[in-house]
């Protein structure tokens, strides 16, 4: 249907005029000039006003991820986290492990661990995706985590390929405790600060809460339907406050 007519019809039903030439350009409708007035935006005040301390966020995130069937371990030092990651990878003894590349490896100082387990890093080369479709384990970081719900938030940016957290059977997330926020709203406020235009907002932002699940067969809950069957979070407590 004609774009102008589509919008005109909506506006007319609502008792308004749709600007006669709004969709006249070949690019279609442009942005509207003014925002409608709103009494409020988003969650109720009692929700957004909550202020959780570091410890509370860390503990709640760990608890909630566990409830969802995932697991979370907290390490006091980065070296201890590396030890934890090695143990986990040994236990899994996966034939093929893939991981985020780029800054993530440097930031969490993972080069040695990645080398000893021959982890295939996401390096943004064209036609590199193939091994990722076969990988058994994917190791990623996350840009944010949410204490309320045990959620990790992954922005699909350079080095941070989306397939790494999606295709393998086991997803390991390595993160700093300082990335944990109280609620989803806080995460969106920070993402919005960077900008919501296509330059600053990546093509995908994924909120993952525990392993993939379904109850479609006689209400029997099972995990690992399409996405990973296990989600392990290894958290470096980089804040360390009591």
């Amino acid at each position, binding site marked *: 249907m004609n774009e102008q007519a*589509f919008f005109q019809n909506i506006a007319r039903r609502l008792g308004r005029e749709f600007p006669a030439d709004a969709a006249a350009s070949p690019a279609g409708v442009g942005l509207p000039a003014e925002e409608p007035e709103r009494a409020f935006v988003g969650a109720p005040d009692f929700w957004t006003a909550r202020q959780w301390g570091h410890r509370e966020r860390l503990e709640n995130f760990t608890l909630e991820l566990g409830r969802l069937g995932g697991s979370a371990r907290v390490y006091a030092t980065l070296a201890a986290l590396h030890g934890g990651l090695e143990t986990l990878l040994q236990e899994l003894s996966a034939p093929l492990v893939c991981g985020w590349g780029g800054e993530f490896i440097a930031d969490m100082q993972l080069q040695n661990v990645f080398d000893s387990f021959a982890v295939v890093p996401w390096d943004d080369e064209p036609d590199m995706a193939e091994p990722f479709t076969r990988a058994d384990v994917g190791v990623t970081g996350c840009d944010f985590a949410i204490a309320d719900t045990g959620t990790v938030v992954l922005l699909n940016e350079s080095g941070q390929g989306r397939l790494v957290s999606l295709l393998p059977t086991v997803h390991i997330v390595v993160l700093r405790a300082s990335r944990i926020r109280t609620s989803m709203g806080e995460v969106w406020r920070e993402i919005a600060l960077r900008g919501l235009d296509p330059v600053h907002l990546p093509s995908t932002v994924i909120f993952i809460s525990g392993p993939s699940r379904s109850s*479609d067969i006689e209400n029997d809950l099972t995990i690992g*339907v399409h996405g990973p069957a296990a989600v392990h979070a290894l958290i470096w407590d980089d804040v360390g406050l009591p």
Partner: protein
Amino acid sequence: MTGVGAGAKDTTTISGRSHAALADDFLRAAVRFTTDRLKDRKRGATEELGRWEEWRERGRAIRSHTVANLDHYLRQFVANARAAGAAVHFAADAQEASAAVLGIVQEKQATLVAKSKSMVSEEIHINSRLEEHGVRVVETDLGEYIIQLAHETPSHIIIPAIHKTREQIKDLFTHDGGQDLGTDTKALVAFARSKLRETFLAADIGMTGCNFGIAESGSVVLFTNEGNADMVSALPKTHIVVMGMERVLPTFADLEVMANLLPRSATGQKVITYMSVITGPRRAREVSGPTELHIVILDNGRSSQLGDAEFQDVLNCIRCGACLNVCPVYRHVGGHAYGSVYPGPIGAVLTPLLLQGEEFADLPNASSLCGACYEACPVKIPLHDMLVALRRRAAQRKAKPGGVRVDRERVAWSGYATLFAKPGRYRLVTRVARIVQAPLARDGYIESTFGPLVGWTGSRHAPALAPEPFRDRFSRMKQDVKVARQNDGKAAESDPR
């Protein structure tokens, strides 16, 4: 769409009726069990969150504000989605929407489309349209996959295969290539996982619905527990989104409210497993993800609700299914009996509104007007008021020309008249009548001083319907079915349409 399920099965022969009735026995138990479970879990999840009524009110206010300013927010959504590189298409009705999708599919010379669960794609009957043109469409939500193999349609908007037993599922999967499958859930799921993984990787096109479109960024937000929408939107080269035009939210801050309301209301989960926010196709620097993102925006009767004080709020619906789970009628008959894409209270309201005309004008009668749907609705849609208003309108349409007075008796009767004229929906109606009359019937007569029968029985006694005649004949019918099965094998299972 190759079938419409039990509601439209042949009811003119004993074998047809028996098949339907036997199937219904499991269906009824399964629906009750599932809806009870979902209700209990929802109660737990909402209590844990606390201040649920404030959340509901906020949800209602956000949706009402958005719908009341849809010209603005949809325009903002479209402009931003285009700026991020998406192609946007507008469809006035189901026909235009499926033509738009078909056009893209043909331009890409696609032969395989992987799909994640979307009610709006059911609404435009896209699967059969694509299949007519030789394109294979594979449903990838586990429940949808099961019913696609069975050539049926969903019976619940959240749990589509609510009516299938694990034995039936095992048989369907075996037919689809599974070997030595037991009825163990894990084994069945493992088969579906590996089978559908091939589909994700081979598909030319991924097709999804859209839970929410975010106006301030032009993003499409998808909620799934399985991760199939992620697969479908990440792996194929082209991603097609089909969205109802009302499915917009102004900001990400508003999305937080819906992310709290939707999973709790749908399944009693505190949080959805995967919430994916997609803004445009892959960027120049990215090496994976679709190179094209198409968004097809569908009206199909929605705009007719705008500006209608009685019905505009029906567009607030976030398709959570909570109203189904609490509805005594839905719980008794299941989704197929409605014969429409959207079942339950929301279906009984939405279907006749979207598809005007006589075919579904009787659906508002498939309700006991108990108001449980309104209580359950996370965005406070007054479904019971809308049902009454729809009945009133149907009765007014039937009023003789020149006759002004529409009496209550006419309202009460009109539904029954149209319903009984339709064999396809006969069973639904008699059941509804039985459920509705249950607390009212005494000594085999209905005396009603409230509810939908008041206009009718206010002036006379109505004979009560025979209680559950099906049960009396159960064992005889069982025998009939056995014989019929031996005679006609699976043929009797398939749908006449």
